[in-house]
């Protein structure tokens, strides 16, 4: 389990990855060739993975996103230290905040 600001990256055993993920569409890379885990709307700062890998939106309990870095990867952000991920699958969770009657995501 790794945390970079408001994003938590949780290791998932390969055998636990749902079967349908193999056929699921992959998220496109951004203009800089990165896999964007979370994007700041105003600054454009992003929690992003550089290097080989795949990102899949996953509505189930392993969601909301699954990251696969078969050769490991680096998670970068303009305002946070880089995190080095060992090879494998990861669940990517965005931090949220309690608001009476609802929840809202955290603006990092």
């Amino acid at each position, binding site marked *: 389990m790794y945390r970079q600001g408001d994003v938590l990256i949780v290791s998932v055993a390969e055998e636990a990855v749902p079967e349908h993920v193999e056929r699921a569409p992959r998220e496109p890379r951004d203009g800089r060739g990165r896999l964007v885990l979370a994007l700041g709307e105003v600054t454009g700062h992003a929690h992003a993975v550089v290097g080989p890998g795949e990102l899949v939106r996953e509505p189930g309990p392993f969601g909301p996103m699954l990251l696969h870095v078969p050769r490991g990867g680096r998670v970068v952000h303009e*305002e*946070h230290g880089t995190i080095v991920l060992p090879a494998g699958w990861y669940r990517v969770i965005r*931090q949220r905040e309690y608001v009476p009657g609802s929840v809202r995501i955290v603006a990092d």
Partner: protein
Amino acid sequence: MDDVNEWRSYAASAAPADRARAEAGVRLAYRLAGLPEPARILWARSPLEGVRTVAGLTDAGASVREAVRTRPWAAERRRLHEELGPEGWPARWSATGGRLWELTQSLVDRIREGVLEEIGRKESARARLILLDAMLGQHDAPWLAAFAADRERVDGDSGSADADGRSVLSGGLESPASGGGTGRSAPGDGSEPSASGAGVGRGVRGGAPEFPASGSGAGRGLSPGLPKSAESADPTDGAGRGLPHSGPGYPAPADGAGHGLSDGGPGSQAALPAHPLAGLAEVCRSAGWWWAFEEVAVVCERPVELHRDEAGRLDRGDGPALAFADGFALCAWRGMPVPPGFLDELRTLVPQRIQAEENAELRRVMLEFYGYERYLTDSGAKPVHRDETGVLWRIEMGIDEPVVMVEVTNSTPEPDGSRNVYWLRVPPRTRTAREGVAWTFGLDASAYAPLQET
């Protein structure tokens, strides 16, 4: 900038409208719909002024929204449904418009509410209808992003198309005459729409929308969802694969006349038919909301101020978060609408005033604006719990539920060596700091154990 971010930037633009480009886009949209161009194009400084302008029109003729937007929009969506299939379309949406939809639509809803509030109850029925007839210009970006994502697909097919790297929806803006009468191309490779043909009304998966606005209170016209009558009037019947710019697959405008349009890109010499949504895309790139009537089009300027937080919500504590040149403005704090006078009061807050506020939502805004830390200091609060994840605080709020927060320190130091402290509100039942931080990631306290934090 990738394609989606380009559309994102149009949706969030607060630059003055590029009026020449917008007007050219409006005229192109009429021509692509097979209509004569409007005799007049009027400008409004805001959606509010736009509604009032439309309400005052006496010689505008009938609305042509159906022909200009609804029908080509439905046709394009149907084409994509058929081509991409029941799994491909949700995937397309998720990778494109879905990334922009929620924030853009919430802004649209908020503007609509603001217009109705300004107009007042007496005139609101009429204003509501006018708002339903609006096309959204810059705020049509999510759908246009989804429609435009064909670029990679067509690059290999269409030769000169997109050679200039512009979006697939960039149509030329020259007059039909200058296009050399290229007119309609043959219907592509002759392929017919897929036999299933049931793209319209098909269920969705994974949250991708068939009609994303359904249930959100958006009505006809404001919703990308389209009435069945529009679907049945799909003019793409019989068209093959769409090849933006290059013609095959895109039908001619409804009148069948030649509307060949230069691609318009630098160095492009070929006269190519425009994408059916090229006019709408041009307005999206260059202006705000707009209305189309037989004789007149009314186009709105973009806002002069737009302040949002990192999550993209309207957010400003010292003035309107969204403002237009005519003074029409919306105030909001982290997405929550607040009355304009309320912001003035924020500057003179004291804890007693916060406690006395009866509206729970405004009280929350007051507390956030005042600052949890300051409030806790001023009110002499003591931490409830402390561990390696942070500090848990609790503020009793009388008959309302208590405010419980975790105080967390950023792991990555600032350039000056200091570390940012931030506060996250957690459910009132939270008993430990770890439980609170774990909750913010949807985990149980026992499951939250990062190996590394930055």
